[in-house]
């Protein structure tokens, strides 16, 4: 009797195994009746073109083979994309239909997932397939320890871009050294010196010194500054914000002081634009913007060639050399099995080494599959870049720094929690606003002829710091995000 039961169990399990196996081979896709996938992305310019080209290639090859047609729709900036996705997911009136596939940051993914609109990619990516990706990158898209909501597409880190031509001129004149730019304190001091040096070049007018430094992502600056100084301002582990007064003060003073006194600046849309306009000499920005760093700047309606120096992201003195690690992946929306599978097919193809390298390297992104870094083509491409035109050499330089940071140094990506994306923008906006107002006030004070020290005193950095914290607190309270101070 028992033997019979055992046999029956064995038979059943074999049966289940067989059906499971056949289910694995089963596909919802039909080449004769291709499924149409709408892809929303935030890429612009060359990235957009690269993506569209890739999509086109996919549609003609793997897509037509398997019955998937991808329609890539550019949604402008990350902000716009995220708004559109949120509206679609929430079913806001007049919102567009939910895309099947879209670029997504972890914070956003968490929010959309709460609406039950995200598909767990574990269903479509086997363990073996997942193992191809850089573990850290993949972890960013993993939630609750289980659910894979985001597949990394490309990653980037931040580094220090320097107009070497301008820097060298200043350094030579002032006995400066690029090594000073390795700390924020050094950057601040150099910027101060640069301002004074440029101011002095026009003796006829005072207070018209030029800014050395720009920060592309103020939020990243705050987050990574905190991290370098041992604080996780976005404490994903405890799902709260940690406001460490001492650390925040250091970060605040550097940025606010620099902005107020004209050592730092932000004019155009991106700091690279400011470089192109000659308004800045250096900035911290994403490696993905490498291609945007110009080979020339416009000076008096003509093109003035410049050299490029790529440096590691500065570190606060006494802090750990952390650099940010970021990059949106893509999420698949809950829809029909065909669409989900179609989206997954595209993602697999798009993140496969060859495709991923090609797409990443158009602007300076990092590929997401660990194999890509060992890939001969990747290395050859890098060599080509190094040997190529100026613009390509620039990109190669960025890769050197970025790869160094990713491989050798510590990169950091805050663990998201509900509302953590708002914390980012709160930090970004509040400090940017503080900096802008500080600059306006300082400009007025300069016109009154006050010295830098007097201006700083008049601005009252302590009070402004409190003001900043108050602004952050009120914003956090408003959004109902828990925070602690210490």
């Amino acid at each position: 009797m028992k033997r019979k039961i055992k046999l029956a169990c064995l038979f059943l399990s074999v049966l289940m195994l067989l059906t499971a196996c056949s289910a694995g081979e089963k596909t919802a896709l039909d080449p004769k009746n291709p499924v149409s996938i709408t892809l929303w992305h935030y890429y612009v310019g060359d990235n957009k073109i690269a993506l569209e080209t890739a999509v086109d290639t996919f549609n003609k090859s793997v897509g037509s083979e398997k019955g998937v047609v991808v329609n890539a729709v550019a949604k402008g900036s990350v902000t716009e994309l995220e708004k559109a996705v949120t509206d679609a997911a929430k079913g806001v009136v007049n919102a567009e239909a939910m895309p099947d596939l879209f670029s997504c940051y972890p914070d956003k993914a968490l929010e959309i997932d709460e609406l039950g609109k995200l598909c767990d990619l574990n269903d479509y990516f086997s363990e073996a397939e997942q193992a191809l990706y850089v573990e850290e990158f993949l972890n960013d898209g993993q939630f609750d320890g289980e659910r894979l909501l985001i597949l990394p597409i490309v990653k980037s880190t931040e580094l220090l871009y320097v107009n070497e031509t301008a820097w060298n001129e200043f350094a030579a004149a002032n006995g400066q050294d690029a090594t000073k730019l390795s700390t924020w304190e050094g950057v601040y001091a150099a910027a101060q010196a640069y301002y004074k040096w440029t101011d002095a070049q026009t003796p006829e007018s005072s207070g018209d010194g030029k800014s050395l430094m720009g920060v592309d992502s103020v939020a990243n600056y705050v987050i990574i500054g905190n991290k370098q100084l041992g604080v996780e301002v976005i404490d994903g582990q405890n799902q709260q914000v940690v406001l460490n007064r001492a650390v925040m003060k250091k970060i605040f003073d550097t940025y606010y002081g620099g902005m107020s006194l004209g050592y730092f600046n932000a004019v155009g849309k991106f700091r690279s634009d400011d470089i192109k306009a000659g308004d800045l000499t250096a900035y911290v920005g994403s490696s993905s913007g490498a291609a945007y760093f110009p080979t020339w700047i416009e000076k008096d309606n003509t093109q003035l060639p410049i050299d490029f120096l790529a440096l590691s992201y500065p570190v606060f003195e006494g802090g750990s050399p952390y650099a940010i690690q970021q990059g949106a992946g893509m999420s698949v929306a809950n829809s029909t099995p065909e669409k989900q599978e179609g989206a997954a097919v595209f993602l697999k193809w798009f993140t496969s080494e060859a495709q991923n390298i090609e797409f990443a390297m158009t602007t300076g992104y990092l590929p997401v599959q660990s194999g890509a870094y060992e890939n001969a083509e990747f290395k050859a491409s890098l060599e080509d870049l190094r040997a190529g035109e100026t613009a390509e050499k620039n990109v190669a330089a960025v890769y050197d720094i970025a790869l160094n940071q990713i491989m050798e140094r510590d990169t950091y990506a805050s663990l998201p929690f509900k509302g953590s994306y708002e914390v980012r923008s709160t930090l970004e906006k509040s400090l940017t606003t503080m900096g802008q107002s500080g600059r306006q006030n300082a400009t007025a004070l300069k016109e009154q002829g006050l010295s830098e020290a007097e201006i700083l005193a008049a601005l009252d950095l302590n009070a402004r710091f409190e003001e900043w914290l108050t602004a952050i607190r009120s914003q956090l309270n408003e959004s109902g995000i828990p925070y602690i101070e210490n």
Partner: protein
Amino acid sequence: MKKTWTLRRQLNILLALIVTFQSIALLSALWVSQVFFMLDAEAVRLLNNTTETRSKTFNASMGQTIANVADETEQLNAALILLARQQDSTPESLYLSDSAYNETALLASDALVSILKENRVTGAFFVLNGSNSNKGDPSAHSAVYIRNTTPDSGVTSNYLLEIGPIAVSKQYTMATSIRWNLDIRSGGEAGDFDFYEKPIWASTQFKNSEMERYGYWTTPRDLLKDNQQVVCYTMPVLDENGNGYGVVGIEIDMPYFSQHYLPDSDLLYHNSFYVIAGMTDQTLDLDWFIPSGVLAETYLKNGEQLKLKALENEGVFETELGELGTMVASARELKVYSDNSPFADQNWTLACFVPSDVLRENSASVREKLIYSIVLTTILAFSAVFVLVYFFTRKISRLSKYVRELSPHDEIHFKPTGMLEVDDLTAALQLLNQRLMNVSKTTSKILELSLLPIGGYEVLDSGKQVILTDFLYWLLHLDPGSLISQEEWNDSYQKLTRQPLEDQENIYEYYDDYTEKQMWLRILEAKSPNGVVGVIQDVTADIEEKRRLTNELDYDALTGLFSNTALKRESTRRITEKPKAIGAMIFIDLDNLKYINDTFGHDVGDRLIIRASEIFRYFEQFGGVVSRISGDEFAIYLHNCGNQNEVRQIIKNLYVHGKSILLTTPDGSDNQIRFSAGVAWYPQDATNVMDLLKLSDFAMYEAKHKEKGRLFEFNREYYQQMSYLLENREAINRLLDEQLIRFAFQPIVDLKTGEIYAYEALMRPLVNNFKNPTEILAVAAAQSKLAQLERMIIMMAFQIIDEHSQQIGERKIFINSIPSQMMNEEDHLFIETRYSQHFNRVVIEVTEEESRNAESLTKKISYIRNKGMKIALDDFGSGYSNEIRVLSLLPDIIKIDMEMIQGIHNNVDKQNLVANLVHFCHNKGVKVVAEGIEVPLDLATVIEMGVDYAQGFYLGRPAFEFSIIDPQLRKEIRDLQK
């Protein structure tokens, strides 16, 4: 002969035919009307409509864009002319001055931003006739080129400065592109710069014409060398004189073009696509084309001339396209140029391609489904027909089945069919049935009221059921009116008729298990034309009565032994069973019953019989049939008890056994029970019981007469002598009962006077069994009927004397009395009161034969004498008579036996004897009669010898009337006396 089909079948065929005709008609109608192919036409029309709508939408939207670009261009023209004036320059030389150019660029970017905001385009640009940054380079043109990645959103923040001074970027906080530049360069391949050259050329051809006339569309190209194919539309920037010195243009990149202007959502069929290309003479020129998506890109080969074959409908074509096979294309020429445009001959045609089979898929599928539907509905209709017909006719079928299975007992309850005619019919039938039922019930009732336990049944050859009347339901313990199948009936019938009675025809013994009662049934069956009818009567009461009677007859009430009839039956049965065995019929007669009866009364007599029966039960152990025949007679039949000697031994033992059984009489003495027995053997003596009985009876009789208390075996010789005794047993009874005798009278003549002295009344039987009175006497004696005989003779004699007293006169009547018998007191009294006046004429003759009861004879004689009657002693001289007797009796008359008289005339001895007797008698005063005078000599002798009276044939024969003496004879006697 006409075929008869069931209603169901007929309806089925009829309705099935209707359904078939209908289906065929439907198919023909569909075929004739070509409805099948209307859908194809409809699909083509739909395709045409879609294409038409799309082309109209495109035309409208492009028209609007063109108008807007023209508007903006004209405004920019005016602004730049103004700027040139302010700078004391000409519009053509604006690029030469840095400040003027910066202003120009900003003005232009205003216009471009405005264009981008207003129109669904991915870029807008402004190109001047020279380069500000490279003034000496003729191929360099200062330009502002702004791209918008999100034309649909209306957001400006995504604008990207591809070409233009950084001032523009700052002005609009616009990001610069990777390939950000200050100039655009001409001088590539021929025609690459047509977007700049063509509109300006147009403007020179038609001076001062409206701006739209100068507009120029480029074919798709990678304008900015960034792998992005775009289509551009440009208009010239003109000075006051209408001379062109730059262009304003828009670009639409291919992805957006297909997304926005040739959207997939339009396409109704899969594997279909749009394409925009030039078309001439039914040939699609694929030198350039704007595809709507991957399919178009895949299947349309660049540079190919795609021949199209026109179809019926306007603007619809057919072509072969690689793997996709036959494609249907709907084509519409797009209006991208004004009619008066110099470029109006450039044809832009929008074509929508759909695989032919896909287009006709719906139609084909509809056709298929229609056929399936028709087939299916036909099948369904068939099924429905069958089902409906089934249900419709079921009521009627049920009705007929119901009627077929009805048994006449059943009350008919027709279920209404809902069909008026049928229901009317059934109602009528029901009524008829009701009446029949009533009739049958009446009959049944009458039977019931007759109180006869009788029932009938009918088994029809054809029917399954058997018809029974109420009585049979009761008899078989069935529910009245329930249906009984033939099988059930056969079982019951078997049970009923299992035990037929042997001796009675048609009567069966039946044990009712249910009531545990024994019954007898008379079952009579008769064939009817279509089966069998039968009647069953409960005759239990009759049989029981008969049995009861039989029982009474079978057993003797007193002894419990078999009766006479039972003996006969049982014995016969035994003989029949074993005819070869030896049997013995033992006839027994108790010796002293009469004595006991007379002495102790009948109760004791009965006890004697009972005790005797106990003795005879001895034979039961040998299987003997022990019976009491009557009174004191018993008969036992032993059969198959061995040979005769063995049986004799058994019988012998009876006497031993009998000795132990005594009868105690009231006087206190124990009496042995004595009996005489006779045996007759089967088959030696007789083979049937009646004969055996008769013969054994005879043997017993012999024993009784010869040696009481013994057993005699049948002796045929003796029997042949004495058989009459037995044979006439019945006759004597009859004779006695019916007084079947009469008297003959023989005259006794007075020898002195010659006159008739008396008549002797001689008994003559009226039955033939007896030859003479002696036999009557013998039989009566044998049967112990002497007393009755005596009584009858005496009574009848007195009666005759009384009746004929006139004729008799003074003459005496001699009556023969049986000496041993004496009438009882009652009879004596009767005679005394009635006939005492005749006593003096009566002479009672007695014989000497029975002298055993001398006492009673003395008593009798004294009675006779007392009453004044005379006594004659008959047959004196023969047998027992002697002188002593004469003395003791002292009779009045002695009749000398004829033995002594006949021949006396020549016999001295007789003469001496008679003379002595006469002498003796005369001495005693006793008269003498001579009997048997038959010859005259004898008469003469006796007269001589002094005999008083004489009797005999010579004197007168016995006659039934009182004869008179012959005068001749009287004279002779008188003569002799003398």
